[in-house]
Each structure stands twice: as structure tokens, then as C-alpha cells.
């Protein structure tokens, strides 16, 4: 198991380096003069020249990347061309907000998705099953930003129960987290249902039932643990979709997170901040997948053994 974890950690290293190359390339691929694009439309020729020097744009690409990468390792992501503050400071101010939003959304998604999926599977073709699966179909198809606006209209404008945007109290968190979590909940519900149905057909479930175990024990102790394996994978992958969705949700609810910072920076052509935000979201996603893979190996020991056999 430890060998598997170490191997998985080592595999993440080239991916992270690759991500840094791609993020580095964002500025260099901008059509026209990158220095002018970064300095802004109204920049003086002197300032454009300063940006060119700071980013070593006259040097070869390998020199530029070497400097970028060594700075990155020291936590230096450059300065915002808009606020002139270090990008790392900008990101660190926003990061906890994105983390709180995504984590809360994931918790909501897991609770709703798992319970709806389990109940649907155990009461197949019941009214609850039909309604929840229809809701799941709609939940996957509904654009997250539209859902957010609909919640604002209903809960903030019409009912006045919750604040429509901003940050501060727990009340501010409810609508954005619910908006962000529902699509994932829908997907988790569908996967849980089909996975549970698959497991409930297995022989060892019949054996458990024929031993006279009560249905609750069969469902939760025998079936659920095995049914959870594909669900955990989907949850890990969904975290990526969720982080992508956070960009939209944060914009709808004026939630000061990394996603909103990124969008504002793109519109302001503040490329160093765009790079930083993209890098942070990608690295976060890689790390989450790493954790999911390790959890997966714990849930299903065949995975780490399987890898050993290949060696």
C-alpha cells in the first residue's frame, strides 16, 4: 500500500511540472506583443519596456521558464499589473473563501446525492425513485449560473430570507454552496443508484439475506461499502467540475474567491494574476485526485495489489 502511495505521489510530479509549463505559456502565446498586452492599453513605452525586462521576454523561452519555475518554487508568482501587489498575497486572501465554498458544496452534494441514490436504489420504481431521478436529470442539465440567479430571485428578492450576494455570515454561504453543490448531488445520486443496484444483484447479498439479516444491515453494511467504490471516483472527478463551477458561482454571488479573481483579472488583462489563479486551481485539483486515488486504494485493495503485479 505504501509503495502504491509513493508511486502515485511521484507520478503527480511531472503532471505538476507540465501544468506549470502550460500556465507559463499563457502569456507567451498571447497574439501580438505580450509585454504590451500585460502592461495595458494606456501604458507608457517605458512601462512596457519594464514589463519586458521583468518577464525576460527578450531572452530564450527556456531561460524565461527556468526563471519562472525557480521563482514559483520560492512562492513568487510576480506582481499584479492592476494592483501592483504580489500575486501570492492576492491568491492567499481569496483561497480560503474558495475552499470553504467548494468544501461546503461538496458536503451538501454528498449528503443529498448519497441519500437520494441509496433510497432510490432500495425503493426502485417508487414515486421517490422517479421524482429524484427526474430531479437529477434536470440538476445535471441546469447551468449553475442560472440556478444561482433563480435562487437569488426566490430566496433573496421574493422571500427575503437570505442575502443575495457577498460574504460575512453563514447565511451568505447557503445559496452559493447549494447552487454549486446541486449539479454534483444530481450526478452522485445517479451513480450511487446504479452502483447500488449492481451490488444488490450480487450473490453475497442474497447470501446475507438468506442468513436472515435484516434489510438495513444488508443495505448499509454489505452493499453500501462495495457500491461506494465507483461513487468515490466520481466524487473526485466531480471536485474538478465543482472548482470550474466555482468560477461561475463566485461571479453570480460576488463571492471573493479565486474563481472570481481569475475572471476579473482576465477582463482587466491582469495576466500574472490569471496565471496564478489557474495554477492554483489546477494544483488543487491534482492534489484532490491524488487523495481520491489513495482513498480508492484503501476501499479496494485490488488496486494497489494490481499495480504490484504489473511491476
Amino acid at each position, binding site marked *: 500500500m505504501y509503495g502504491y502511495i509513493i508511486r502515485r505521489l511521484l507520478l503527480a510530479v511531472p503532471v505538476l511540472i507540465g501544468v506549470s509549463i502550460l500556465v507559463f505559456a*499563457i502569456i507567451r502565446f498571447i497574439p501580438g506583443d505580450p509585454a504590451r498586452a500585460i502592461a495595458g492599453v494606456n501604458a507608457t513605452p517605458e512601462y512596457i519596456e519594464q514589463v519586458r525586462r521583468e518577464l525576460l521576454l527578450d531572452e530564450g523561452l527556456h531561460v524565461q521558464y527556468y526563471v519562472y519555475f525557480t521563482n514559483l518554487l520560492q512562492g513568487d508568482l510576480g506582481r499584479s499589473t492592476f494592483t501592483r501587489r504580489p500575486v501570492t498575497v492576492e491568491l492567499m486572501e481569496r483561497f480560503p473563501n474558495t475552499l470553504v465554498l467548494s468544501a461546503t458544496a461538496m458536503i451538501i452534494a454528498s449528503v443529498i446525492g448519497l441519500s437520494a441514490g441509496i433510497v432510490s436504489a432500495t425503493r426502485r420504481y417508487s414515486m421517490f425513485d422517479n421524482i429524484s431521478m427526474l430531479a437529477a436529470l434536470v440538476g445535471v442539465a441546469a447551468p449553475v449560473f442560472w440556478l444561482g440567479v433563480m435562487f437569488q*430571485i426566490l430566496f433573496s428578492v421574493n422571500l427575503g430570507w437570505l442575502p443575495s450576494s457577498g460574504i460575512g455570515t453563514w447565511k451568505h454561504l447557503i445559496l452559493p454552496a447549494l447552487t454549486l453543490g446541486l449539479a454534483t448531488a444530481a450526478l452522485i445520486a445517479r451513480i450511487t443508484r446504479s452502483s447500488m443496484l449492481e451490488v444488490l444483484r450480487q450473490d453475497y447479498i442474497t447470501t446475507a439475506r438468506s442468513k436472515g439479516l435484516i434489510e438495513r444491515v444488508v443495505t448499509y453494511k454489505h452493499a453500501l461499502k462495495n457500491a461506494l467504490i465507483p461513487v468515490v471516483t466520481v466524487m473526485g472527478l466531480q471536485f474538478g467540475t465543482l472548482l470550474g463551477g466555482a*468560477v461561475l458561482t463566485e461571479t453570480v454571488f460576488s463571492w471573493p474567491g479565486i474563481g472570481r479573481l481569475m475572471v476579473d483579472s482576465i477582463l482587466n488583462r491582469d495576466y500574472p494574476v490569471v496565471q496564478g489563479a489557474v495554477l492554483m486551481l489546477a494544483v488543487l485539483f491534482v492534489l484532490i485526485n491524488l487523495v481520491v486515488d489513495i482513498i480508492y486504494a484503501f476501499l479496494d485493495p485490488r488496486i494497489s495489489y494490481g499495480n504490484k503485479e504489473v511491476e
Partner: protein
Amino acid sequence: MSAKNKADEICKLPTPKRDTEWTLVWRHLRRNRLAMAGLIVLVLFLLIAIFAPLLTPHDPVITNLGNALAKPSSEHLLGTDWLGRDNLARILYGSRISLAIGLISVTIGMLIGVPIGALSGFYGGKFDLFIQRIIDILIAFPGILLAIVVVTVLGVGVENVMIAVGIASVPIYTRLVRGSVLAVKEQGYVAAAKALGIGDFRIIIRHIMPNCLGPIIVQSTFQIATAILWAAGLGFLGLGAQPPDPEWGAMLSKGREYIRTAHHLTTYPGLAILFMVLGFNLIGDGMRDALDPRSRKHR
């Protein structure tokens, strides 16, 4: 009767109708009510996109400030926007943009991703390793983020959104096709084709790809839905279609400023996105079941 005459007689007999794989798939699909509902929704959207000018007397772009933010009425069934343009007309014309983005971006993703995946799976070795590490890096960008990155580099606009969303779907196709090719290339008929001295290119096109078609079609149906959602998201963020184009995501974004007075500007474009995406997803679900021999047997 001579032997020749007998043979002629046999040739004249009608050949027994054999069900092809696709006939079976269609027959299965037709019985799936949800998939048929999805198909009807999509055909409706297609008709709307083609015949939009015949369905509404209003122009989606010409402004009429005297009639701004009008509530839904018999003249304007879904009201008007902040510039007095008919909301329904903009939604009807908007289906052209969303369908075009969905179809074109998926075509771009397929044209790049499928050949790379096929070659990667077929040749294996160092080439495969190299391609897969690049795909690992692209997959490290969650969901819509890769599309946002590409738009940042290329600049905003509908054409760039198509390219961006297309590029963002390349890794999905590469992985999918590689997996299918790996499974198919070990089959006996591929070994037979190789033994006959048929060239690699021909083997891939004639013998391997037809067997990977099912997963590609299913994935593409879902991918169009995702592309439409991503493109609307980019439009919503101000990175997609630009005014005065009636793009649903952008309409919704601007409509947000009027949620207290004119919520029809946000409700209906969102519903349009939802139904179009739902249509593709339902067909995708149906196709997946229909192409899976296991689930066909269950019925």
C-alpha cells in the same frame, strides 16, 4: 431442372432481412421513452434554429428604447430586454448560436482527439507514453477552466469559444479512443489483417475505428451538452459571444441587473439552455443503453 437454372432460381429469392447492429440500436432507442423525449426536444430546437425568422416577427438585434423592459404580453410573449428587444426572438435566434457552438466545438475536439487517441493506442510505446503525459496535464485543468485558459490566450468571441471548448474536449476523446483501440487491437481479425500485410493506416480506418464508433457517438452526444453548458458559462462571464449577439449565457448575465424588475430576462434564457442540454443528455443516456448489449438483453 439444370443446375444452372436452380442457381438462377435461388438468386431470385428475396434475401432474408438481416438486422444490422444499428437497426437493433434504433429499435432499442425507439422503445426508450426518455430518449425519444430528448430527440423530440432536439428536433424542435433544430427547427427553431432553422426557421427562427418565420417564428417571430421581431428582430433579435434592432433596439426600441421606448419599449424597454416590458413585461410579457400578447405582443411580446416573453417581454422585452433593457434595449426594448423582444426576449422571445432573442431566445429563438440564440438557439442557432448554442447549437453551432455545441456541434462545431465537438467536431473540433473529435478531429484532433480521435486520431491522436487512435495512434496512441495502436502504436503504444514511447509515443503513447508521451501523448498520455500531455493528456494528464490537460486533464489537470478542471472542467471549464481549460476553455477559459484558451479563451484568455485567443481573446473573446464566438469563434474563439468554439476553438476553446473544442480544445478542452480533446483529452476526453483521446482517452476514450485510446481505451477502445487498446481493447480492439488484440482481436483476432486485426491480427489476421496484419498477417495479410495490410498497412497500419488501413487497419486503423477499416478494422479498428468502426468498432470504436459506439463509444465515440455516445460520448459526443454528452460532449455537445457539456460544450453548450461551457460556452454559455463563458458567455455569462463575458468571455464568449459579444453584444449584440443573442447568446443565452450573455443574455442571462446582463439580465441579472434586472432581477428585481424583469426576471423574465434571466429565467427564460436559462430554461432554454437547460432544455437543450437535457435533450442531448437524454439521447446520450438512451444511446449508451442501446449500444450496451448487456442492457439490451435485460429488456
